[in-house]
């Protein structure tokens, strides 16, 4: 029993360890999906455990409740290492605070992106060009619930368009369109919340951020039929953004601290290299791990989340 207490923690640590390796070795689209599923399961499981500890610590578990849960094949913890309990319960509080912060930040960014599209966009045109000299490009997913062809818009600045030639511009637009078509913002949102709940998953979050960019790069390279042009587009855009000639004052030079290991230079190098072979086994193992993690979580009244994640994992395995 005590071993299964540690399962979510061990899985999180394992994910922290292997995420960078997976990011470097696997073809990006599948690896991202698998890592997202595993992170979601690990976060759900660790949260469910922490909630149960909280219930036990607060004395909410009466013998009657315990007996009723046991009748349904579940059980509550009776003894747990004090240090672990304290860590999990305080982690739960901190996690809640972080989740709220992430929610607010996401809402704000979405609002600001849509405001920019509103200002610069014309009608429902997919391409929105902002009259700004500094090179930027964003994929702006459609607001929740709105159904459209690709379900979003592409926001680029004049600075970005001027930095690239015609072929490179096509690569850029294909990249951003890939984000919209593959709904990468959802994958990133899931790992963002998972890492907010469980900080051990921060490396997995960074790896997914890198993997969805790589997936979009590969998509763009396939669409325009030239890996090299896709690589040059990326390199040119990055250099243009880095040049001090830019009139924009916003971004400090090392804003992307967390991503320095998963940076643009590595994406350019990956596009220059041959595409990675599509391996099925490692992503499937990850999803299996996610399913097991979720299933290991005890059947308390509070673990509906774990159930749904387990089912989600099984559906994914069936999909592969």
């Amino acid at each position, binding site marked *: 029993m005590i071993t299964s207490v540690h399962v979510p923690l061990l899985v999180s640590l394992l994910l922290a360890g292997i995420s960078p390796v997976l990011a470097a070795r696997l073809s990006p689209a599948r690896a991202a999906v698998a890592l997202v599923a595993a992170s979601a399961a690990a976060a759900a499981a660790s949260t469910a455990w922490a909630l149960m500890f909280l219930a036990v610590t607060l004395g909410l578990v009466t013998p009657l409740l315990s007996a009723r849960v046991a009748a349904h094949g579940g059980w509550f913890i009776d003894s747990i290492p004090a240090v672990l309990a304290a860590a999990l319960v305080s982690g739960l509080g901190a996690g809640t605070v972080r989740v709220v912060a992430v929610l607010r930040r996401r809402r704000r960014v979405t609002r*600001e992106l849509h405001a920019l599209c509103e*200002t610069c966009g014309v009608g429902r045109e997919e391409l929105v060009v902002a009259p700004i000299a500094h090179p930027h490009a964003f994929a702006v997913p459609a607001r929740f619930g709105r159904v459209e062809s690709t379900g979003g818009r592409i926001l680029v600045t004049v600075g970005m*368009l001027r930095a690239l030639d015609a072929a490179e*511009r096509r690569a850029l637009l294909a990249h951003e369109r890939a984000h919209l078509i593959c709904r990468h913002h959802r994958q990133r949102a899931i790992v963002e919340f998972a890492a907010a709940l469980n900080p051990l998953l921060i490396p997995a*979050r960074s790896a997914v951020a890198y993997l969805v960019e790589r997936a979009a790069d590969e998509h763009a390279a396939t669409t325009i039929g030239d890996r090299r042009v896709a690589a040059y587009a990326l390199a040119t855009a990055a250099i243009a*953004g880095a040049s001090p000639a830019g009139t924009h004052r*916003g971004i400090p*030079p090392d804003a992307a601290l967390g991503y320095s290991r998963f940076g*643009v230079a590595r994406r350019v190098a990956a596009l220059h290299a041959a595409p990675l072979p599509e391996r099925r086994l490692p992503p499937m193992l990850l999803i299996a791990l996610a399913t097991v993690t979720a299933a290991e979580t005890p059947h308390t009244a509070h673990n509906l989340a774990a159930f749904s994640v387990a089912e989600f994992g099984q559906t994914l395995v069936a999909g592969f």
Partner: protein
Amino acid sequence: MATLWASDQPLTPTAVRDALGAELAYNTVQTILVRLYDKGLVSRAPSGRGHAYSPTVRHADRAADQMHALLEHGPDHDAVLQRFVTSLSHADETALRRLLRRRRSR
């Protein structure tokens, strides 16, 4: 549309077609430009026998303010904001510059 934005001067349909580098008929480009003009996306001025087109710049000041608001929140935001490129480390910048120089010299 992106081609017009990328140019710093108005373009004739022929120039647009050349810049696109794709095998498009003059008439196709011309039709698209007229359609964009009808929608108010581009403005045009007489040039030679036809027109030269440039994109309509709207609300530049407001756009600049909004972009600034979007980007000024710093590194935390990068986790939420999906963007084409993030900023470069010094070593990466040098490496990429070398790569692009090699390409030009080829």
